[in-house]
């Protein structure tokens, strides 16, 4: 498979150009580097959660990066593979906090983010949501490669979204899970057939490649690493809760 482009939004700003050289130093003691809630035009997304809007924002950023119209995504030919470790946390917590009446229950599901993306861009093809951090994103990239190779889609979006602000207090208490700074991010890669076959690597080297610049972005990290590498790295890898996964000869 070939990486046609990657759209990236982080707490540092839009695109990889906004990434600092050293996330920890630039965070200046902030534990969470948040992205403000986007303000989409129109009324359709008025009930959508912030993570849904960030997912759509990442696709918009991708479309600008590859200079293609949104209409090229529509239809059954585009697969959507979504990954997150944490983005359902805010909605789950809000609903658990007896504020359920104000939050539309279906938005508590991890599948809400890709659902809004699918509705926004008219995607009606292959569709899987992977839960986990960077290792799960590698799984999604591998699965996208498999779909492309067997002709189950003509192109694939691998989308990752991570939000932390609403659960910052919990993450702060659970630093053993992830040292800061936690940097909110949304990233979307557009994959097309061709190039060399990607081989699954259960024990890769070079995990956490982008972390020094990005901070902790969980599932977004491998996609940001792809963007930093110009979409054509020799390998991509990730780690989450002790599990490692990688792809070679991407």
């Amino acid at each position, binding site marked *: 498979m070939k990486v046609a482009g990657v759209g990236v939004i982080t707490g540092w700003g839009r695109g990889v150009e906004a990434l600092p050289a050293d996330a920890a130093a630039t965070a200046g003691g902030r534990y969470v580097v948040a992205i403000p809630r986007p303000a989409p035009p129109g009324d359709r997304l008025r009930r959508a959660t912030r993570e849904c809007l960030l997912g759509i924002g990442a696709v918009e950023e991708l479309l600008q990066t590859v200079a293609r119209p949104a209409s090229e995504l529509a239809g059954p030919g585009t697969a959507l593979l979504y990954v997150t*470790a944490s983005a359902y946390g805010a909605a789950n917590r809000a609903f658990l906090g007896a504020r359920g009446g104000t939050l539309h229950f279906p938005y508590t599901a991890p599948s809400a983010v890709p659902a809004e993306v699918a509705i926004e861009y008219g995607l009606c093809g292959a569709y899987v949501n992977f839960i986990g951090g960077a290792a799960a994103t590698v799984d999604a990239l*591998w699965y996208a490669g498999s779909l492309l190779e067997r002709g*189950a889609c003509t192109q694939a979006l691998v989308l990752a979204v991570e939000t932390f602000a609403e659960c910052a207090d*919990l993450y702060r208490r659970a630093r053993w899970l992830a040292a800061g700074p936690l940097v909110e991010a949304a990233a979307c890669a557009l994959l097309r057939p061709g190039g060399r076959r990607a081989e699954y690597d259960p024990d890769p080297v070079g995990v956490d490649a982008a972390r020094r610049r990005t901070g902790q972005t969980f599932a977004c990290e491998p996609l940001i690493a792809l963007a930093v590498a110009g979409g054509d790295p020799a390998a991509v890898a990730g780690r989450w809760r002790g*599990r490692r996964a990688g792809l070679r000869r991407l």
Partner: protein
Amino acid sequence: MRDPVAIVAAGVVTPIGQDLDAFWSSLLTGGAGITRIERFPVADLGVGLGGEIKKLPPAPRRAPECRASRLLLAAASELRSGGGALLARDPARLAVVVGTALGGVAEGERALAGAAGLRTLAGALYDSPARNLARGLGARGPVLTVSTACASGATALGVGAELVREGVADVVVAGGYDVLCRFVMKGFDVLRALTRDAIRPFDRRRSGTLLGEGAGLVLLAREQDAAAGPRLGRLLGHASGSDGSHIAAPDPNGRGLEYSVRAALAEAGVAPTAIDFVSAHGTATPLNDRVETNVLKRVLGRRAHEIPVNSIKGYMGHTMGAAAALEAIMCLLAARHGVIPPTFGLEDPDPECDLDYVPRTPRAARPRIMLSTSAGFGGCNASLVLEGV
């Protein structure tokens, strides 16, 4: 057409039976899995009924408290009877793929209510129960959690089969789970999606679904690796599809469901005319059952009215992430035993749902090629094509 993947063994924990034999027996005799929920308060909810498992099987030593993990570990213990040799082979080549709509949210509910500590809160992460299952199995291969709402179990089987086909793993434990908790009961209550009556799939009087809990797992391996031992059947094809239509309701035209059925058949290399039996999603919501009927008619064509179709949600409620895995296992048991369980709760067929929904009594039949359909919030759809032995 993709290579078939062998389904070597299965394990279940459900409100109607905590092993394959009890589960199967209840499907044929109409064992009632719907009861008043007792494990958490429901008095303030419009509906307090569900498919609750009243007593979990004994936990293995050092098992986590997490109910979802306990369900998975209990279902996995049954895999050893048919697939023990494969499970014991090479831990590094043993993978786990589980699907869930809720993950460990029940743990989050406990922790945020102050009933448990921060470690318990980590159990609320959606991927925690899969990690506990992998630890219990001693699996050191990839451990994946997928969440396509109530289609998650089918997605897990499909992704698991792909891990086997692509040589990422030799053996995969795949399936789905979910537990009843206040979080989900309250959510469905707010949506007014639960019925105060019984679950009546494809019935004129159907008025909504009820939720249930459970876990269903299968052991997947390459055909050649499974050749020597017993097996339940084969997974021939899987596909998932997005509606791209609505955050909660199914697409009225069933676009994503139809895509997933057609793509799964294509992956299996099976013509619609070859289907012997369909396990429908059949939630008993007015819209789902009508949409599903129309999709089956479009895909199966003239034969649609000749093919038996059932829904087993009336027995135990909609078990969400477990549902598709349990339904796939039901298909394989139907092929093995030569009997199709009836659609429990269907008494007065809806004229708009006019397929052969196997009402009232079990049907003697020996289906070989079977289709199982699933759908969920967010326009998630998934279909499986299975072959029984």
